[in-house]
């Protein structure tokens, strides 16, 4: 039987029978993969074994007939160990895993794998704020699902201008001119970065971004609610 080698991030684990476990992993080439890990429950030495929270491992497995393959071996490549020192980061990390678990299937999902890995990378870096990682992650999810808002023109088709204030129209998924609007040039620039940057670390270095995150959060939340519920 052919042994396949891939990289994986654990999304969930459940027990099976007396001695076995089913581990669900996200892999770049095969999407979500469910593997039976035989006999591991007796050993209970998971932490030394490579299946750890917020980590990426090299996995060797055998494809099964149906949905379930068999895990042959695993080796930890990268453990984002600093995330667990801060409970806010753990919380977001957990949520990212949950969301990704919901939206991925067994087609090739290298984009989602890269996204999750990049999220871990950013959460592991104490110089990147949790709020920023959250916003960036939400933006990237929306983008992958095809829900990028219009950040170039307003609701009537005119280019967005620097001096103007805007409100966000959730139905049109675009900005509309409003003198009492909450969003200005800086917000829009930041939004563009959130949707285009492949990691949040670079956005964090832009001056003044921190103060905008609170306002942007409500916009991002409404976008996510509309599209993912």
């Amino acid at each position: 039987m052919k042994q396949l080698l891939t990289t994986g991030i654990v999304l969930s684990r459940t027990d099976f029978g007396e001695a076995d476990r089913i581990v669900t992993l996200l892999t770049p080439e095969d999407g979500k993969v469910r593997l039976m890990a035989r006999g591991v429950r007796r050993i209970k030495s998971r932490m030394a074994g490579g299946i750890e929270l917020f980590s990426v491992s090299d996995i060797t497995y055998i494809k099964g007939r149906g949905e379930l393959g068999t895990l042959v071996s695993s080796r930890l490549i990268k453990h984002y160990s600093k995330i667990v020192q801060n409970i806010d980061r753990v919380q977001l990390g957990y949520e990212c895993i949950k969301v990704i678990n919901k939206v991925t299937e067994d087609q090739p999902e290298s984009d989602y794998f890269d996204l999750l890995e990049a999220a871990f990378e950013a959460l592991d870096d104490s110089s990147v704020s949790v709020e920023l990682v959250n916003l960036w992650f939400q933006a990237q999810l929306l983008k992958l699902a095809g829900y990028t808002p219009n950040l170039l023109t307003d609701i009537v088709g005119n280019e967005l201008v620097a001096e103007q204030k805007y409100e966000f129209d959730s139905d049109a998924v675009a900005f509309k001119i409003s003198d009492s609007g909450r969003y200005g040039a800086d917000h829009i620039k930041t939004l563009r970065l959130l949707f285009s940057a492949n990691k949040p670390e670079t956005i964090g270095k832009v001056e003044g971004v921190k103060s905008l995150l609170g306002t942007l959060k409500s916009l991002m939340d409404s976008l996510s609610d509309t599209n993912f519920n």
Partner: protein
Amino acid sequence: MARTGANNSAILSQQLLLSVTEQLKVPLLQIAREAEHGQLSGTTDPVKIQLTAESALQLIDNYALGVRLNLEQSQLEIEPVSVASVLYDTGQQLDSVAKSYGVDLELNIAGRFGPVMAHREGLQAALVSLGTSLIEALPALQTKQLTLQLATHRCRYGIVAGVYADIEKLSSETLRQGRRLQGKARQPLATLTHNSGAGVFVADAILQAMDLELKVSRHHRLYGLGTVLQPSQQLQLV
């Protein structure tokens, strides 16, 4: 390594002060619970409480020395010092904390080295500080043996003096990352200690004040922390 100005140096930083403050909570907590246990059970162990208090005093003392050394940098008295004798005295000072954590101390001074140029008090304080940190962490590090070795050996750059144990994960990267995270993360040296690692950073700052560098070091198959010292040339002039 260039000496930084007194106002910028690590020992005077708020981050280190925060780290030391967090670390001091440990012995105080131990004393509080030990004393309460004494009341509950009717049997106090005053020796335990005394040793814990002395350990806390030592941390404060080392930190204060570090601050003073940095403030008086230009007046530092460097003199020829016997590494063996510094290690021996360090062992004496670490004896009680080692006992209270169930750690054995070993002195390993193979080979005959001449004196090195150092500020004796600072060097000893740094080694005691490092030793204490390792001793407190050892029981939780799951090492095969609970032993701390105080050792010296010759290296390409001079004579190394350090504290070592049978620990696995100690790399220069750990120390580098620790210095970056110090003051920002609760556990900047998470693979080495569950605490703030103040003892390591106080030693780091003391050594810096003496123009020495704290390094991850290897002694035979043991890993640890130490510094490289320069042999005294004075006798050659006589």
